[in-house]
């Protein structure tokens, strides 16, 4: 099972601990903090597995069967209406996530706890038809080994056709998930709509798996599976694996603790896929990140010792070494300064990003508005109002979804650019302190790794501001046409025939104006809410990047300062003192080299597979 940390993660944990002991010994608490965080992050990546598909295909049953819980409401009659997020928790519990983040403190809370027996009343059609209770999601916590690794399963309302509101929201959520589990059943082969959703999922999410459910009910399920594979191949989606499962067998297997039945249910294969392809891959990134952190810390520690040794070995070179270190120190200070290149890239980039996203949204909403006005000019608003509002909601939902996708992509690009520029700045610093084979004050930033990491951070930021999943049904309602009553007969009686006609015309014009105004107000509302969300997300990304790199610069600065101090002390020492100190330093460096060797070994162990993935 995935749950037990794989050897790779365990080794990384040990490595981080070893490095942490070293920072304690040398009194570098700043570096120690970095390692403490690395330790915490390791083995608990934040992973979202989005379970999507047409409705009544068995998505909730699948989530329950994977986790061996009865948490997601399952019913023959009613469907899931809001996304249900299942994550790890030491005690079972459930919470409701409110629609909008509260604007004022005295408004409704952002989330509140509910009893486990209340879940159906919030998550399914029963009690919450069409999400009339207006919530964003239900979050369930259960103690499960599979989830301990940081995986969260997100059960979604069924996609009722690509153009529906739920469809658009699912599209948007695709980009925020690490893995998409697409659910279809053995009652029929994949339909055109399903293939379209799958295609969108593959375009937006790194890992997609197609699960064929209900194989216990349909004798021809093997043929359906073959047909589905053919459809996938024809749609150039052959990299999407198709796994056939029976939830009924899985339930029986778990109730009877029968390994045989479990194998027959097909679930072990799905769990294996989740463990290896999803959790495993995320863990590899986590391990590489940890190794990168450890290497950085080792570099810092060694830098101090090597500078000191340099001076001890050849007291005559003390001055040039001290000069070099002095220069390095001032460079490190520059790296921290606002004027540093990466800082500018970050500052300007964030501003550009915000205005780009804003502009994108405006442009898209303007198009929607134009189309809406055209429709209103062609018809009497009264006649088309119901269909019109439904259409508008769908349009707005897919607009917002597209906009969020642009944001996600651009935020990733920004993170990568900042990491690159920091690396260039750092490179300059390294050359500055290259003294013969002397000290190297460097973190050797792995830009590729940083890109992945920062990408994840942008993802986390967006998830944070969207409350885990994008606004399923967040779109409010258009204001009704209460003001737009048809011409009343009372007025009609008092007017002559011609005047009546004029009056009717005037009223129609007025209705159109009112309808257009209602549309504009609605779009303004949407624009305001979405803008706030994306600005929050951008700020989050910006802060995260700034904190990370500032801290790194501070640590570099402190290392150069300590190296300088050590070198100065060394320069004042007597020959005897110098001799014993040299031995001591050699021993320390040997110790650090041992840790470094372990780090390199670990990196080599995860590199080839990471490259393959």
């Amino acid at each position, binding site marked *: 099972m995935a749950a037990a940390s794989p050897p790779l993660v365990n080794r990384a944990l040990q490595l981080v601990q070893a490095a942490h002991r070293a920072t304690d010994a040398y009194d570098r608490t700043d570096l120690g903090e970095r390692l403490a965080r690395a330790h915490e992050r390791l083995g608990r990546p934040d992973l979202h597995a989005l379970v999507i598909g047409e409705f009544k295909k068995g998505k909730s049953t699948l989530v329950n069967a994977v986790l061996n819980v009865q948490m997601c409401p399952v019913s023959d009659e009613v469907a899931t209406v809001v996304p249900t997020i299942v994550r790890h928790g030491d005690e079972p519990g459930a919470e409701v996530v409110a629609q909008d983040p509260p604007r004022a403190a005295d408004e409704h809370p952002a989330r509140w706890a509910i009893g486990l027996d209340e879940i159906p009343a919030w998550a399914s059609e029963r009690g919450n038809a069409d999400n009339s209770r207006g919530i964003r999601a239900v979050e369930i916590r259960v103690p499960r080994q599979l989830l301990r690794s940081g995986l969260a399963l997100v059960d979604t309302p069924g996609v009722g056709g690509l153009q529906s509101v739920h469809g658009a929201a699912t599209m948007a959520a695709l980009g925020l998930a690490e893995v998409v589990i697409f659910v279809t059943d053995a009652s029929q082969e994949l339909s055109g709509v399903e293939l379209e959703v799958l295609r969108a999922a593959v375009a937006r999410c790194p890992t997609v798996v197609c699960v064929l459910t209900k194989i216990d009910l349909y004798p021809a399920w093997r043929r*359906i599976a073959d047909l589905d594979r053919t459809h996938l191949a024809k749609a150039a989606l052959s990299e999407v694996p198709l796994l056939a499962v029976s939830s009924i067998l899985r339930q029986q297997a778990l109730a009877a603790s029968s390994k045989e039945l479990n194998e027959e249910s097909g679930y072990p294969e799905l769990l294996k896929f989740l463990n290896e392809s999803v959790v495993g891959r995320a863990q590899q990134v986590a391990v590489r990140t940890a190794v990168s952190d450890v290497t950085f810390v080792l570099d810092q520690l060694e830098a101090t010792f090597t500078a000191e040794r340099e001076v001890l070995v050849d007291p005559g070179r003390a001055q040039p070494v001290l000069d070099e270190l002095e220069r390095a120190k001032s460079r490190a200070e520059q790296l921290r300064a606002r004027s540093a290149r990466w800082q500018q890239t970050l500052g300007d980039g964030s501003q550009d990003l915000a205005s780009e996203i804003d502009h994108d949204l405006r442009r898209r909403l303007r198009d929607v508005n134009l189309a809406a006005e055209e429709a209103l000019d062609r018809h009497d608003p009264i006649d088309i109002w119901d269909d019109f509002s439904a259409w508008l909601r769908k349009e707005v939902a897919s607009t917002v979804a597209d906009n969020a996708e642009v944001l996600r992509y651009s935020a990733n690009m920004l993170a990568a650019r900042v990491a690159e520029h920091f690396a260039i700045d750092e490179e300059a610093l390294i050359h500055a302190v290259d003294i013969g084979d002397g000290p190297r004050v460097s973190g050797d930033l792995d830009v590729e790794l940083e890109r992945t990491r920062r990408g994840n951070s942008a993802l986390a930021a967006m998830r944070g501001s969207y409350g885990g999943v994008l606004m399923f049904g967040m779109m409010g309602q258009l204001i009704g046409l209460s003001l737009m009553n048809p011409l009343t*007969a009372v007025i009609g009686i008092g007017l002559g025939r011609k005047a009546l006609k004029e009056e009717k015309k005037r009223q129609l014009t007025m209705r159109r104006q009112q309808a257009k105004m209602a549309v504009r107000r609605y779009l303004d509302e949407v624009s305001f809410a979405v803008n706030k969300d994306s600005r929050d997300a951008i700020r989050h990304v910006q802060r995260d990047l700034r904190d990370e790199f500032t801290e790194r610069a501070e640590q570099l600065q402190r290392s150069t300062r300590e190296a300088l101090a050590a070198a100065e002390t060394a320069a004042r020492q007597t020959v005897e003192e110098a001799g014993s100190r040299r031995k001591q330093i050699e021993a320390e460096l040997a110790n650090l080299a041992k840790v470094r060797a372990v780090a390199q070994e670990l990196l080599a162990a995860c590199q080839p597979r990471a490259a393959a993935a």
Partner: protein
Amino acid sequence: MSQLLDQVRALVAEARAALGDGASGAALDQIAARLDEPLRVAFAGRVKAGKSTLLNALVGEELAPTDAGECTRIVTWYQNGHTYRVTMRLRDGTEQQARFSRADGALTVDLDGHTPDGIDRLEVLWPSKRLAGVTLIDTPGLGSATAGASQPAHRFLAIGDDDAHPAEADAVIYLMRHLHQADLGFLEAFHDDALGVASPVNTIAVLSRADEIGACRPEAMQTARRIAIRNRTDPRLRRLCQTVLPVSGLVAQAAMTLTEAEFRALRLLSEMPRADVDELLLTVDRFTGDQLPAPVTPIEREDLLARLGLYGVRTSIRLIRLGAAASATELANQLRDLSGIEDLRQLLATLFTQRREVLKARAALAALESLLRERPGPQTERLSAELERIVASAHELTELQIVSALRSGQIPLQPDEYAEAERLLDEPGLSLAERLDVEPGGERAAILAAVERWRARAEHPLSSRPTVEASRALARTLEGLLVDLDRAAPAAG
């Protein structure tokens, strides 16, 4: 009623004389012929909704080929006839006899080298009592993964910009597995203008494959019934179809054709110990595999499963064990009742047969209207005016339009008024007293009171125009009922 049909017939004949021979003439001949043909009922729905299976169940024979994968690719008409014959109508306008055979009951047609794309439709002539009053039309499913496979259905039901193609069906049975967004979309697309193909008056929605709801458990059909009742009150669906019925085509088809051998096999299975049967019926793989002991060979079991489905097998075994089905006939009757097919058949009989003539007239007028619009000639204006006069003066058509408008909520009425109007116009199979919601004997007084009420409603200054029109029409309908009542009264008394 036939008065309307006669008017339409006369108009078509007049148009035929005015427009003469050529393409228009041929089209008019078709319209004229169609007035005297059986009602055409089309089966529509998304792919794998179970259209062919339901068609077979209604005919009571395994005619249309069915399969686990997508199967129907060509629009196929099943008509009553004196002989067995299959005709291919090709896209290029020609037609050709096709060779056919029956393998395992279902019809296999030799397309003689033609691709499905090149064939407009297949016409199957089949002597069958059940096809006597109605022609059934099978269509390819909508929303197929195979590009192009769905287009014929769209064209056939006159969806999209292909306005030139007049509606070929008089009524539609729309099959859906759940009420899906896409189904609403398709149903909406069927609806056209005033004289369009589908409207709530001639569309029945069927919750198909109802036996598969809820993992084929024994209560599946009851669950399906509850869902159907819920769907009936859904306002989005109300304005698109007459009603929603749950039907299991597979169980119905098996019930119609259940054999003694099948019954014997089922009885043997029902005699197994309860736990063993449950184990065997847990999954389809277990049921058809040879790992578990059973008194029936795996091949026989596979056949049973293909014929009845998991729900059918489970239910049959339960019924036999409970002693509710002691013979093949009894089991077949039980399954037939469970399947919901009888409800559908009854609804078809009352609804479409009752409205048969007006539906026919309506379809013919729609076809004629599009023909006149499409091919204007010297007489067009006069003919159009005449057509408009018929449409305006035919009270039956007005009633149909009001039913549509009522259902789509276009007529503002009080809830009790709404119920009254609906009972009067839109409840097939009710007696006069039931339509008026009075005790038998009180019809006359009730009609007189209702006429007054609706007249007052029509004249009320605050009534909106649609309400005025509907109220007038209802008053007229009631007056017609009064005339019928008075005419029948002396005979009865």
